[in-house]
């Protein structure tokens, strides 16, 4: 073999190796990364990931964080040339911002290519965390509509019933209005004993108090925007809702409510130290768990916010635009699998908050969780926080005013006016 032949052979072998190395990535070589909120829903999906890997060969890794740290972490990845996170969990508060910034890939071509069926998804969920300005950027992942999780044993306690009747002349039962809810909450703080308070409140400034107050607002007939999209927050209903909110913080809630988050309130409720909490309906199975919350398991229920409307929210799955086509395809495989009917029912059997109507009506799911009927009421009656480019900033603006009112540094009427002006300013900025 002469030198020339040897060189040619070595060159050919090197080229072949290079071509093999630079060819399309095999599924077994792909690992998808997702930044996820550290909530039960994430843990449910995480436990199912080995099934997905078994089916497709694609590995998925979840990095779990508390909600408040997610936005900044995601944004810093999305403004770069490539994102570390290949599958995005997008909160509805960012569902205006992310597409407007051009960070999300259009999912319609993936739907068309794979024939993924969008019809079972609840229309309100598609509006919230699916479509944006007529384009499909997200697939609804789960909902976090809010209602009241409450202790039934305290409502049925004969001594408390008598005391309530004596004090108010009314029967102690699940409240029908916001004012009644706050009244019972204050009553429980005074009479339930054993350090039990009426409401475990998450009134820390920012996302916690904005979400919580939204329930009070909708419950009392207030709105952020009218039907034409104009700011309608500065209303007598909203002022009254804030007055009741502040009253409950001061006289019905636990000590430290103004610095409390969902973690604090769920621990308190689980410990049996609160009669109620305004929270996500899927917190019910967490509280009703004998191993995790022995003090309250079997004594809790969920109801629609008194007044008929609570806050509605949700998460969607998205795919970053600054990603290679191979990784985008892998990400879509994961999304279409996890939001398919089979995986959704498996998730629901473990307490998942579905975005597909066919899961709520599944016989197996209803047999295991009869309260999914109430859950559907909570989801159906929910109203959304304003979704626009600056939703996250508006939460901050609103949260500050609510916290000022809660700490007594602003009158509720002034706080509502400032919050309404802030919303108007940000809406104008986004246009």
């Amino acid at each position, binding site marked *: 073999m002469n030198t020339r032949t040897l060189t040619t052979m070595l060159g050919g072998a090197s080229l072949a190796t290079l071509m093999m190395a630079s060819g399309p990535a095999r599924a077994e070589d792909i690992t998808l990364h997702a930044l996820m909120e550290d909530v039960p829903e994430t843990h449910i999906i995480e436990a199912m990931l080995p099934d997905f890997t078994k089916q497709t060969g694609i590995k998925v890794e979840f990095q779990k964080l508390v909600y408040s740290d997610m936005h*900044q972490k995601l944004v810093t990845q999305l403004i770069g040339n490539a994102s570390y996170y290949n599958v995005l969990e997008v909160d509805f508060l960012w569902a205006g911002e992310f597409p407007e910034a051009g960070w999300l890939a259009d999912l319609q071509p993936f739907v068309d290519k794979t024939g993924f069926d969008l019809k079972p998804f609840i229309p309100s969920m598609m509006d919230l965390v699916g479509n944006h300005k007529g384009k499909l950027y997200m697939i609804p992942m789960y909902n976090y509509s809010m209602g009241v999780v409450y202790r039934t044993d305290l409502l049925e306690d004969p001594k408390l019933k008598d005391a309530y009747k004596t004090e108010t002349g009314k029967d102690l039962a699940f409240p029908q209005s916001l004012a009644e809810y706050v009244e019972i909450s204050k009553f429980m703080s005074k009479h339930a004993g054993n350090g039990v308070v009426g409401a475990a409140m998450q009134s820390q400034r920012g996302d916690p108090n904005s979400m919580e107050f939204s329930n009070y607002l909708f419950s009392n007939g207030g709105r952020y925007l009218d039907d034409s999209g104009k700011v309608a927050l500065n209303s007598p209903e909203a002022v009254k809702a804030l007055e009741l909110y502040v009253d409950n913080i001061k006289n019905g809630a*636990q000590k430290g409510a103004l610095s409390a988050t969902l973690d*604090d309130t769920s621990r308190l409720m689980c*410990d049996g130290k609160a009669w109620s909490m305004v929270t996500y309906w899927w917190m019910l199975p967490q509280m009703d768990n004998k191993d995790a919350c022995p003090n309250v398991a079997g004594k809790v229920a969920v109801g629609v916010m008194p007044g008929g409307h609570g806050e509605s929210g949700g998460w969607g799955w998205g795919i970053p635009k600054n990603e290679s086509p191979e990784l985008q395809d892998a990400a879509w495989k994961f999304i279409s699998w996890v939001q398919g009917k089979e995986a959704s029912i498996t998730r629901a059997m473990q307490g998942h908050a579905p975005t597909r109507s066919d899961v709520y009506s599944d016989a197996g799911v209803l047999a295991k969780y009869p309260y999914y009927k109430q859950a559907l009421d909570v989801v159906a009656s929910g109203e959304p926080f304003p979704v626009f480019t600056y939703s996250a900033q508006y939460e*901050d603006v609103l949260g500050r005013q609510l916290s000022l009112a809660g*700490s007594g540094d602003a009158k509720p009427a002034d706080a509502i006016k400032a919050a309404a002006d802030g919303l108007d300013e940000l809406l104008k900025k986004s246009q």
Partner: protein
Amino acid sequence: MTAEAAIEAPKPRRQRDRWRATGWKFAAPGLSMIAIVMGFPLIYALLLSISSFTLLHPRLQPFIGLENFRTVMADEYFWHSVWITIKYSAVTVAGEFLLGLAIALVLNRVVRLKAVYFAILTIPMAMSPVSVGLVWHMLLQPNLGIINRLLDASGIGGIDWMGDPNLAFWTVVFVDVWQQVSFVILILAAGLASLPKEPYEAAEVDGAGEVQQFWYLTLPMLRPVAAIAIVIQLINETRTYDLVYVLTRGGPGIATDLLSYFAYRRAFLGLSISEGASVSFVLLLMVLALTVVFFRLVTRRA
């Protein structure tokens, strides 16, 4: 001047120039690193602060001059943040210095197990502020935290550490001092250990008491070291962000809304990196002004 001297004269100058050039060569790698690590981000941040860069439109142009500064300064809560940042820095640095000096003086007299005490004292300094915030958040949790449980058990009753607008500021101050005082102790202890013994011996012969020795010898001799410790801490405290983020999120109300947290919210919640950069520049100017004022005070007294 003789003819020989005139011929000899340029020689030391050339030698001086050579030394200078050699000096610059030695300093060049370090200076380049400083230019890259500090100079570039600083210039880029300055450009950002006068640009229209947002996360939605990530482009520097068009440059809009001082418009971002005008916008943030027109925000009524900005001035509140400036004021409480100054108050916070003054209180934490004073607390750290007084407590640090007291502990350093005690440690200076300790003979046995000195290394053990120093090792224990450095633990908070080795922890990240976020970890410190999380640990204290658990300890101070009003309903289930161990501190309130102990207060309840002792009959004093639990305290709303982070939810009471009159207390939240002082809670953050306390946690910050707890962590940062180790650094001040180490610097001051090193300063105390290096003080000469002779003035103290002379003072003792002259009949000076311990208080007089501390006041007229220790404090004046420790002044340069103390000044360094105070300036470093002043810079650190003015930039405090992590503890507020973990413990209070600026609340309740606006009780702990420090300027760094204000800048973060402008940049990442308001999506306006340029406004965030302009607030950061105001913060930088504040730090510079405080440092200059402090050094002037120290040198004037010296």
